[in-house]
């Protein structure tokens, strides 16, 4: 099955009101080209599940988010995500704030088609009081404790960025960490993957390292989009690091007069090609140093 499609066509499958899961972590391997295409659309009222970075900030700034399911939003070296902050501080989004591991369990539950997974996480904290929908359960076995029933985080669409994919949806992540991307792919009804490079699967045959870098079966990939540098300004190891200068400009825009509109006018008026040129061009991005944590 050929799943290769254009970025525009892939994003038209996203409708207002859907629940979206976004892979990556903070400033790391975020499917930003897909997010930017979403920003260009008129989709709104999204529920977003993310280990958040600028994906969350931009979608909030553009008014696309009705509800955010999150444990944090951060640009890592700039600890506080500027537009996520604005959205929270103005009370403009509904939130379900949970622990990082709870989010993982919610995705696992959805991936395994379970209604919930019991956990001790959240007990004794305001995660429970701020999320009155989170229920406690008792063990059917011999046990005197309450457990938090972390509900499945079922996703309509998962957005993931990888370094290599073939047209049938075999996706390789050669970065040190896949984060929770495999869980997003499994928790989502449909998954859109953007890839730095489209490969012929033959190139992986008899290369166990390449095959071990595939974390979900191609049946979990619905659409494949060729999006070189599609994680920018987040990192896509081992190919390029995050763009610290761009993140600084992005964070500064949140405090400037034009705010989000100013950022949008400067970088997001054209297509992805225009974006790459506006942020300094392909060569400059490929030179971005890999991050040191």
């Amino acid at each position, binding site marked *: 099955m050929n799943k290769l499609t254009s970025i525009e066509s892939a994003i038209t499958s996203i409708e207002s009101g859907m629940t979206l899961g976004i892979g990556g972590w903070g400033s790391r391997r975020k499917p930003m080209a897909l997010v930017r295409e979403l920003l260009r659309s008129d989709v709104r009222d999204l529920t977003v599940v993310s280990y958040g970075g600028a994906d969350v900030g931009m979608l909030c700034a553009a008014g696309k988010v009705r509800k955010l399911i999150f444990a944090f939003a951060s640009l890592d070296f700039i600890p506080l995500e500027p537009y996520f902050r604005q959205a929270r501080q103005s009370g403009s989004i509904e939130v379900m704030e949970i622990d990082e591991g*709870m989010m993982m369990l919610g995705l696992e539950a959805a991936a395994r088609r379970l209604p919930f997974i019991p956990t001790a*996480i*959240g007990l004794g904290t305001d995660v429970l009081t701020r999320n009155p929908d989170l229920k406690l359960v008792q063990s059917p076995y011999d046990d005197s404790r*309450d457990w938090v029933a972390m509900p499945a985080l079922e996703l309509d669409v998962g957005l993931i960025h990888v370094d290599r994919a073939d047209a049938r949806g075999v996706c390789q992540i050669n970065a040190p960490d896949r984060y929770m991307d495999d869980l997003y792919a499994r928790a989502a009804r449909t998954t859109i993957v953007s890839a730095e490079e489209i490969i012929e699967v033959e190139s992986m045959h008899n290369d166990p390292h390449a095959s071990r870098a595939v974390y979900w079966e191609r049946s979990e990939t619905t659409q494949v989009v060729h999006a070189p540098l599609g994680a920018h300004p987040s990192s896509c190891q081992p190919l390029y690091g995050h763009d610290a200068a761009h993140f600084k400009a992005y964070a500064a825009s949140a405090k400037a007069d034009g705010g989000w509109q100013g950022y949008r006018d400067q970088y997001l008026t054209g297509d992805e090609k225009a974006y790459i040129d506006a942020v300094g061009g392909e060569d400059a991005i490929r030179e971005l140093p890999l991050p040191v*944590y």
Partner: protein
Amino acid sequence: MTYRLVDQVICAASESWRDSGEVLATGIGLVPRLAASLAMCSSNPDLMMTDSEAWIVSEPVPVGPRGDYTIRAETWMGFSRIFSNVWGGKRHAMVGPTQIDRFGQANISCIGDYAAPKVQMLGVRGFPGNSINHPNSFFVPAHSKRVFVEGEVDMVSSIGFNPDRLPRGYALDDIVIGRVITNLGVFDFAGPDHQLRLLSLNGDATVDDVIENTGFEVCIDGDVPPTAAPTTEQLALLAELDPHDLRERALG
């Protein structure tokens, strides 16, 4: 041997792991990371540590630009596996909360009205899961009533010794909080009824400094000793772990 307050603070903080056994030591932020690294290089060589990215390393990675240094990776430790470790309980983290209350409950999420916070910070991150699964110590660079708040913290991100929030089937003694290290002193929550207890004073801080800058009562038991001075060995290790002296500005 001359040393700075920050050196003393890091050495005191590293004591948090002395008796932790063979666990993953995680220090979030520069001072906790150096403290964990120092502990692994001295008081507790059984500790495990990551490169703060995706690998368990056989020796702590120096902070800052690495030059020719290559990490001594021994196994993969991406985020999903970190949670496997956390849920198994074999970890002791040191974290930097924005607020801490008399129950040892900590907050890094937000300040003010939850619906539209005055200050939105990170979110609860891994605090809820960490605090119910393994010991955590706290580092506070600037000890004040804004951090050690009078009432409860605004968003309880990690469980503490609050009887009103104790989950069914739990005893207060099931909750474990390690040490609290601030610029002023070293503390634990082992006072009467898990009250914050002053163990020693850093630099030239006084008991009055602690009392004036804490929003709740602190257990002060007799004469409080000064925090130990760093040893020559510790200072030499710190110079290796922090070759660019990033710690110089760590206390603000």
